[in-house]
Structure formats: C-alpha cells, structure tokens
C-alpha cells in the first residue's frame, strides 16, 4: 500500500465518472430545456400562418390537434371581416352605409357598430368611429396626404360625432355628410373572433398578431405567460416586455402611419375628433393590455387622443385594463396591475419608468 497516496484509484475513477455524469446532465438540460414544460401539454402540435389583410400583415400561431384547420378558418374569417368592414371598399357593408346613409347590417356588423358607439360614449368621444370625413380629407385612406385648409376642417368637424348615428333595432342610419370608419376597432374585434374560433376548435394556446395588435389565448404551451414586446415609436427596438395570458396588448401612436408636410411638420394618422387635426400632444405611444381586442383597440386610440394626464385619470377611474404610456419627454408610465409582469428594456426612447397607482 502506498502511504503517500491520499486519494486512491477507486476514488479517482468515481470522481471522474461523477464529473462526466454532471457534464452529461448539463448538456442534456441544455438540449431539452425548451421542451421541458411541466405545466403544459406534452409537446403540442404548433401551426403557423400569415396573411395580408385589412391593409396590414397578420401572423397566427396555434397549438393543438386542430391548429392547422383553425388557422385556415381564421384566415377566411379575417377576409370575411374585411369584406364587411372595409371603409375603402364601396361594396362592403360600411362602404354601402357611407354611400347610402342607411344599412340593414349583418349581425356581426351591427354588433361591431354597437360596440364602437358604446366605446365612443365610454371614452367621452375620444374614440369616435364617425371621424372618417376628416381621416379622408387628410388623405390617410386615399394615400394622397395633404394638409386641408382650416375652412374645410371646420366644415367637416360637425359630422365627426358618433352621437348622431341612429340605431333603430336592426338598421343603422347616418345623417347626411356623416360616414363611419371602424378601423379603430375592427382589427381588435376580428382578433376576438379568431380567438373564439380557436377556442371552439379546442385550442388552448395561441398567439395572433394582426398588424401589431397582439392577442393571446391561454398560456404558452410550456405553461408560462406570453412575452410581448412593445415597439419603440422612434426606431427598430423595443422599450419593454410584458407577460400576459388571455390578454391583448395593443399599441397606438403616430409613428406607424404618418406623412411629412412641405413645411416639415409630421402628421400622424390618428385624428382628434375635437379639432379635426392629427393628434399632437405629450404622448408618443399608448399601450393597452385588456381582455378584449376590441376594447384594447378602441382604448389605445382614445387614450392617445386624451394625452398623458387625462389618460392616467381615465385609467384610475375605470377598471378592466392596464396601460403603458410613453411620453415624449421619455417617461414611461406603467399602471400598477401590469408591474409584476413588466420588464423595461434598454432603449433610447425611455429615460425613466413611473408606476401609476389608483
């Protein structure tokens, strides 16, 4: 026996084997870490689809046995929504309503108009589906942007008032000169209908993005929340990430669709129903997290119209949604309900984060 050896051969072999086993376990863990889903379904089938519709790019991801079929039906559903609700298609129900001032709408369209009018009332007119005469005169739906003369804006402003839409059981009537644009709510509503379709197909986990309107069904297949990034209004980066399930995350701002006038002024596509001009206040973007896409869509527009102070007051006075506001001075206001799943990202757009409480 060698007295100088303080670790014998067997110990060396055992130690080496243990090292190898540990290393093997780590490698195994890395290899299968994405498939480890103790809270989710066992490796559910993922299906994806994309679609150009409603003047934007849409993507769908759904998990489950019927996901392929559900996505195909979702695409058809979206196209059907577009056929009914497009403001630029004279043959759509909204096109006919605007042309003739009268419509006996389908059940879905009537429901959407009722919803739009109720959200208009809820937001004290900040969301206004009757804004279309002004949107059109600024050229945001014709592609021929221009700064209209003040006299033209003054003449059109009285028609931009959803309170003058007459609903009589199954018919809709507009006063002469009025026209509706459901673009501020249609994508959110279409998303709600897609998720309802998915649910009906037995799908428990899905993520859809209708032109940046993100809506989720359930959790991710691994049981975690969906991580949704919020795009910076100033560049190709994200300012924050929120974790959600069964919620939509919808952002509005003047940075996606805008034009620059001859004098260098930038005009965004969200028109204020109060002065007839593209909204220009202290907000750069508004994100709403809500249970319904239609609500999130309408609120994101309405809060952007309100400006930071009024938007925060509105949130304090109402429940059922959370908000993230980015002001032009770089302050990111985050409502308390979303704070537990909120994560700020390094961005030149954000200088400070401020929690807002009721």
């Amino acid at each position, binding site marked *: 026996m060698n007295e100088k050896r303080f670790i014998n051969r067997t110990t*060396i*072999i055992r130690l080496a084997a243990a*090292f190898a086993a540990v290393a093997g376990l780590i490698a195994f863990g890395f290899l299968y870490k994405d498939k480890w889903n103790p809270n989710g379904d066992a490796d559910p089938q993922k299906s994806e689809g994309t679609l150009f519709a409603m003047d934007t790019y849409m993507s769908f991801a759904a998990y489950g046995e019927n996901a392929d079929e559900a996505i195909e039906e979702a695409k058809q559903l979206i196209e059907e929504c577009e056929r009914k609700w497009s403001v630029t298609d004279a043959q759509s129900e909204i096109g006919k309503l605007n042309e003739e001032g009268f419509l006996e709408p389908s059940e879905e369209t009537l429901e959407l108009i009722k919803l739009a009018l109720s959200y208009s009332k809820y937001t004290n007119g900040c969301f206004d589906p009757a804004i279309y005469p002004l949107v059109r005169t600024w050229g945001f739906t014709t592609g021929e942007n221009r700064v209209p003369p003040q006299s033209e804006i003054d003449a059109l402003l009285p028609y931009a008032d959803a309170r003058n839409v007459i609903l009589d059981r199954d018919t809709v009537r507009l006063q002469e000169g009025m026209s509706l644009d459901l673009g501020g709510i249609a994508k959110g509503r279409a998303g709600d209908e897609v998720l309802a379709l998915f649910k009906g197909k037995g799908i428990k986990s899905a*993520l859809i993005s209708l032109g940046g309107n*993100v809506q989720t069904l359930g959790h991710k297949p691994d049981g975690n929340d969906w*991580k*949704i*990034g919020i*795009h910076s209004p100033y560049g190709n980066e*994200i300012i924050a990430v929120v974790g959600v399930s069964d919620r939509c995350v919808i952002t509005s701002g003047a940075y996606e669709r805008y034009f620059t006038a001859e004098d260098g002024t930038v005009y965004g596509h969200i028109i204020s129903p109060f002065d007839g001009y593209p909204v220009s206040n202290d907000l750069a973007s508004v994100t709403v997290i809500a249970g319904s896409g239609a609500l999130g869509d309408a609120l994101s527009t309405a809060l952007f119209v309100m400006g930071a102070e009024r938007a925060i007051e509105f949130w304090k006075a109402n429940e059922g949604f959370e908000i993230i506001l980015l002001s032009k001075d770089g302050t990111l206001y985050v409502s308390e309900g979303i704070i537990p799943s909120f994560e700020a990202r390094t961005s030149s757009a954000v200088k400070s984060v401020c929690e807002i409480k009721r």
Partner: protein
Amino acid sequence: MRNKTVKILSGVCALLFAVALGFVLIQYFSVSGEEIEILSDGKVIYTGKGVSAEPVYIDAVSAHGVNRIRIDANGVLVESADCKNLECVHMGYLKSAYMPIVCLPNNLVIRYTGSGEASAPDAISR
C-alpha cells in the same frame, strides 16, 4: 497495469467532460435564427442562410411590385423596392426573429424561421 487503467478511465471521463462542456458552450454562445425565408404573395420563394460572405441578390417579383433583396455578410435587407412608402427599405437589416421585414404594398415578408434568441419576446405590439 492498474495505474494504466486508471489513467485511461480518467482520460475518457475528462474527454467526456470536455465534450459536454464544449457542447454547452456552443449552445450558449451560438447565434440562432440564421435560417431565413422570404415570402412573396404568401409563397416561399427562398429559404436558406440569412448571411453570405459574398452578396446575393434576390428579386421578389409579385403582382404588386418588385423588391430587390440583398443577403450579405451583415445579414438580409431590402435594398430597393418600387413601393410607394419604402418602409421595407428603411427597416434595414433583419434584426430579430420577432420583427420581420414586411412590405405591405408588395406582399413581401422576410423572416427568420427559428424562434430566435431565448430572451426574445413572442411577439411585438406596435
């Protein structure tokens, strides 16, 4: 003899350890999402690497218009297009799996086929 056996076994275990460690490091530091696909009018017209040492040009021709796409050592971008707003060109290089390059007027999408980095969001609200 027994010493030799111990040395061999120790060497084998050390080698296994090194291989496993190397695998972990490669997995950790490797850049995912390099495979891209280009869709024009909903049809896949290209799948492959999103980088190329020598510039590769792809013309995506659809019923709506033409986008000239370049894949070079820095990545993939739309170099020119005949669309009105040129947003696809202004987006520059494809940066992330969650933010595809989209040309709405010409029905063009350039995206990574992988899910991208683990910390990346699942989608972007904009």
